[in-house]
């Protein structure tokens, strides 16, 4: 027996409002799903500009189960009305007209209040410790094994008469880990120049290559050995991920470096590089902020700079008081976070045990942001 055709039913209500936290020119339309949503082909959103009597224009469509549509490229200050057409097969039903909505731009992103508060507190801490450093107060920074081993790795490589291989990863110069890697490269280059060792830097990105050439040159100049600098050793390899991995593996196998530095942004090629480095018996110091690659580096290399240790590297190695002050502020901020977590855990656990809702005040205060 053939079932009767399903009649399209309109969406019960439509609401239009200025899209919050945007640069203007956008209205968000929301609706309740049609009672026959499961058989709806699509919801088509119509826009009426200026007045409810204006000619409707299709603004776009979404598939069934969707309750929101963002209409962009509108005129700020103009009034818009919307209705939603529910399509079932070739049949349709129109909803009532929405309320009028006027797009406008906002001067503050309310969704980023918490980020602003944290940034202000953290910024305050940074400036406080900068002032402390300027006044000449000594700052204690804990030892970082991976950075302590930099000189050892360069020295070992020199003793073995092998070159040093520095791999700045597959990040771009706009990535902070790549900039941190360049800071480490400078120190490695300086040490290599002092020991008269050869340093090879294959690059994934031409801009990083240009920056790396300058950094290595600067390192050699600081060591007083600009004559030893060889620009040809800092070169572009390829901008393809696995092509880069294959190229660097080839360099490792051919040149047999005594020390390998893997610093910067890494993805799936991290273990391929680190294991090849291990197979040639090089001392390896890795560092990345790619959390998914850290276990590979920890398993395959001798020393690993975990996350923020990499960012701390340039300050740690240069011992510049101003740079060190930012690390001090970072450590204090971390202490603050730990304290907040502990208080939160304690209060929430107590609330769960005692059933006292008042104890949720701490969590609720944070949810205000």
């Amino acid at each position, binding site marked *: 027996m053939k079932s009767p055709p399903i009649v399209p039913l309109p969406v019960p209500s439509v609401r239009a409002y200025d899209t919050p936290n945007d640069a203007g020119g956008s209205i968000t339309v929301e609706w309740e799903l049609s009672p026959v949503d499961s058989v709806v082909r699509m919801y088509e959103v119509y826009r009426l500009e200026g007045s409810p009597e204006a000619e409707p224009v299709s603004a776009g469509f979404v598939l069934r189960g969707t309750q929101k549509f963002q209409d962009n490229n509108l005129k700020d200050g103009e009034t818009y009305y919307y209705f939603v057409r529910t399509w079932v097969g070739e049949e349709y039903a129109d909803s009532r007209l929405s309320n009028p909505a006027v797009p406008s731009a906002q001067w503050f992103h309310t969704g980023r209040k918490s980020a602003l508060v944290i940034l202000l507190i953290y910024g305050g801490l940074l400036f406080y410790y900068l002032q402390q450093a300027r006044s000449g107060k000594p700052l204690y920074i804990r030892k970082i094994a991976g950075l302590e081993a930099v000189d050892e790795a360069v020295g070992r490589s020199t003793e073995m008469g092998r070159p040093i291989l520095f791999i700045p990863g597959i990040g771009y110069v706009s990535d902070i880990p790549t900039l941190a890697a360049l800071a480490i490269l400078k120190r490695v280059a300086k040490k290599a120049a002092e020991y008269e060792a050869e340093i090879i830097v294959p690059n994934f990105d031409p801009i990083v290559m240009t920056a790396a050439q300058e950094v290595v040159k600067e390192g050699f100049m600081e060591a007083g050995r600009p004559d030893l600098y060889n620009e040809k050793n800092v*070169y572009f390899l390829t901008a393809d991920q696995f092509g880069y991995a294959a190229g660097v593996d080839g360099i490792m196998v051919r040149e047999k470096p005594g020390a390998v530095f893997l610093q910067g942004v890494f993805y799936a090629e991290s273990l391929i590089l680190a294991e090849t480095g291990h197979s040639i018996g090089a001392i390896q110091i890795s560092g990345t902020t790619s959390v998914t690659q850290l276990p590979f580096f920890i398993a395959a290399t001798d020393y690993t700079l975990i996350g923020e240790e990499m*960012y701390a590297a340039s300050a740690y190695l240069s011992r510049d008081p101003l740079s060190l002050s930012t690390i001090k502020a970072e450590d204090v901020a971390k202490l603050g976070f730990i304290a907040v977590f502990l208080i939160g855990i304690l209060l929430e656990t107590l609330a769960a045990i005692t059933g006292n809702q008042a104890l949720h005040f701490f969590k609720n205060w944070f949810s205000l942001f």
Partner: protein
Amino acid sequence: MMRRTIPLIITFISGILLVFALFIPHKPFGNLEERFNDWYIIVSGFTMILGMDSLLLHHWNKIRRRQADWFHSAALIVAFAVTLVWGFYSGIKVGNPFDPKSTFLQYFYTYVFVPLQATMFSLLAFFIASAAYRAFRARTLNATLLLVAAVVVMLGRVPKGSGASVVLFGIALVALAVGLVLHGRSLVDLRGQLLAYGGAALSILAIIPIAKYFPTYLPAVADWIMNIPQLAAKRGIFIGIALGGIAMSLRIILGIERTYLK
């Protein structure tokens, strides 16, 4: 002096503007990041020429000096030239070098480039095995904990892993019991023997709860390891990275960190 000062001023203004842009959606701040990224893409497009220059010069020198494996460099330069010429030819003939009608590049991509990439990627399986072997050798308490956690997660997340876990842990416990019995036989003092035989008996008895509870609870334990201790450690690292990133950015914006400059 000016060579450093002007870039530092540009860095400071750009950095501060982008910080403002994060909190101000209104024009002209709203799409500032997008616009800066567009500029970056334009600049990086031009620097590709620098990259090509570096690459070709590097390999040309290898050929010129007849360095070891120089023919690999020759292959690279030939492949580069052929791809470039064919790309231009396809661009002129078809209108787009990446058009499916541009058969050479399509053929090259499908039958050379993709298999080569897949080959490199597949090496990862072997490298994971060798790295895991080194990391999981139970020499220290940390390595042992890592080994146990890894085994539980692996068995808890693979099909039929729970059933296999009973067999694997059963074999391990039987081996432990045999080892303890042999050790006990080599001992002379009664207390030591009793401890060894008792341990062996306990190992055998432990097979019963493993057989009973592992198939039911192993996936839950694996999920717990992934969702609680693993995620907690990961989030800790993320917080450190975020704070470190802000500190590094401020160092760059304020001109304290300038290693990237000439």
